[in-house]
């Protein structure tokens, strides 16, 4: 049995648009976000994401688990970035050190040292804002896009019928397989399998993952026979496909697409002119003096 995302019709900004228009805007937004490293530009984009979140009509208790997981993940990696400067050296060549903390011990001859520099802090914050912006916009989609419209949306975006239907099924299967994975893990736990206590070397760990990965995969393939039969009985792929629901652009949808594309062009132009590169606030530089 398929499990669905927690979609329901809501009075929200996102759902007031044609899903194709929102997806186009979403793609433009993502492309804009990855063009910049300047925190000031990223904050503008982040504000747009917050508008989308707060007007989405999705209650906190509905999205709590997703936010906690993704938020925790992003905070963890941002903290790691702050500690290590990982990835930042692509953007800055020198560091203005605010504080250097050196451990009083060594590990295999290496003395752990923590450097807090103006650039490192600015980069970690920019990274966090950037990824939060992307995640905030992405997380809304499964809650706001009607599963019945997945296929016609992707088809309407120009994908061939089979690819559009493949994308449709992919989005439908994800929550179902997530549930299957959880069920399989519970079933294996009942037999004494404990994922949390996976021990041994790399090979042993990989081998121990098999009781989770193999049953879920094989079950998915076996269960797909019903779907394949149902599609074959409806002559899937024999000719051009029609869809039960039809989508029609309204002026507000065209306006959203125009806004998204315009925003992308402006962002590309700004980027080409050298705006939006990595920026370190003055107060951080002053702290380093």
């Amino acid at each position, binding site marked *: 049995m398929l499990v669905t995302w927690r979609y329901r019709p809501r009075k929200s900004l996102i759902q007031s648009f044609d899903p194709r228009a929102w997806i186009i805007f979403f793609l433009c937004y993502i492309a804009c976000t990855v063009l910049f490293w300047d925190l000031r530009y990223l904050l503008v984009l982040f504000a747009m994401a917050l508008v989308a979140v707060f007007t989405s009509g999705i209650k906190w208790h509905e999205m709590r688990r997703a936010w906690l997981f993704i938020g925790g993940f992003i905070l963890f990696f941002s903290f790691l970035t702050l500690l290590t400067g*990982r990835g930042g050296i692509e953007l800055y060549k020198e560091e203005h050190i605010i504080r250097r903390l050196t451990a009083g011990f060594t590990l295999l001859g290496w003395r752990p040292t923590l450097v807090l520099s103006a650039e490192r802090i600015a980069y970690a914050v920019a990274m966090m804002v950037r990824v939060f912006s992307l995640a905030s916009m992405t997380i809304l989609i499964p809650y706001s896009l009607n599963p019945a419209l997945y296929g016609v949306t992707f088809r309407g975006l120009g994908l061939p019928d089979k690819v559009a239907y493949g994308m449709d*099924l992919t989005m439908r299967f994800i929550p179902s397989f997530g549930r299957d994975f959880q069920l399989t893990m519970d079933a294996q736990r009942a037999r004494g399998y404990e994922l949390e206590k996976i021990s041994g070397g790399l090979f042993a760990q990989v081998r121990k993952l098999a009781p989770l990965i193999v049953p879920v995969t094989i079950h998915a393939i076996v269960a797909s026979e019903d*779907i394949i039969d149902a*599609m074959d009985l409806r002559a899937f792929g024999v000719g051009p496909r029609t869809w039960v629901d039809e989508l029609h652009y309204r002026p507000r949808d065209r306006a959203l697409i125009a806004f998204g594309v315009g925003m992308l062009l402006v962002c590309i132009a700004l980027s080409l002119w050298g705006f939006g590169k990595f920026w370190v606030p003055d107060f951080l530089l002053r702290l380093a003096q």
Partner: protein
Amino acid sequence: MDKRLRSILFSLIGVLVFFLLIVWIGGLINPNLQLDETGVLRFVFVGIGLLIVFVIYALTRTSPVWEVGTREVVYMAIGAALYAVLSFLFNGTVFAVPSVSQVALRPAIAIPMFFGYAFGPVVGFFSGAVGNMFGDALTGFGLSPQWSIGNGLVGFVAGLVHLFKDKKRSVDAVLIASALLAALATVIFFVNRNVPNMMFFDPEAGIFGDATISLFAGLSAVVGFVLVLLVRFLFGQNLDVVAAVTWSLLGNFLGIGFAAISDIWINGYPPAVAIVGEFLPAAGPNAIFAAILVPLLVVAFASVQRQTGR
């Protein structure tokens, strides 16, 4: 070449020309423009990856492996969804590999490998590319489309085995190619072993994270290859298992290699850093997953096929 093929080819070339024009025009506007800073280069490599797929398709388009029916559409979706879910679970809940960028141990890579081998290159490519895209979106990893294409190539290459009539001979050729690639990456590791910038790319400051990758990580491609070689000889009588792991290994080296090498231009890594700090930590463990998990999936699937007759 029919009209449809021509239109796809022209579209791909058009995309590449568009981005190259941006490079050219951008250079005129801003002489100091570094394209990697704009993020545009990511999409150039998406175009290059798709062009590689398309060229292979165009050269072998008469083969039945390119047929996409109902079954393939459903398997594409299953592969992509499974890969996304497992990537989400393992990206977030297991652990990241020390490397120059965000690399996680990903046993889920066995999914596009297996789907590519079992159901063909189209299914493998879709499973890897779309699954990685959804998996990254679910995890909050952001946008790395060239890595999605790289993951797609893993499944795609695994499925190319079906282009060969004699699987056994293809296996031997693939093993030789994989051995060369593993040896090359390992030699690059040893030549650059003392370069202390492979983990966090911060060699000058002498700070936390400033270290080389471990010897095991550096040898992981060879370890993976040796495991596959063992499978080749221990399961020699089961050609399906042997072909699946060897082609998956090659797909892994080529797909992850494509993504890692693209970061030479996208992220500005020196070639040694891209190979040692990114390719080896990703492709090495993947090779081990290929050697252990793919045979299990192949054997389980063969058993199901025998029972259901499909």
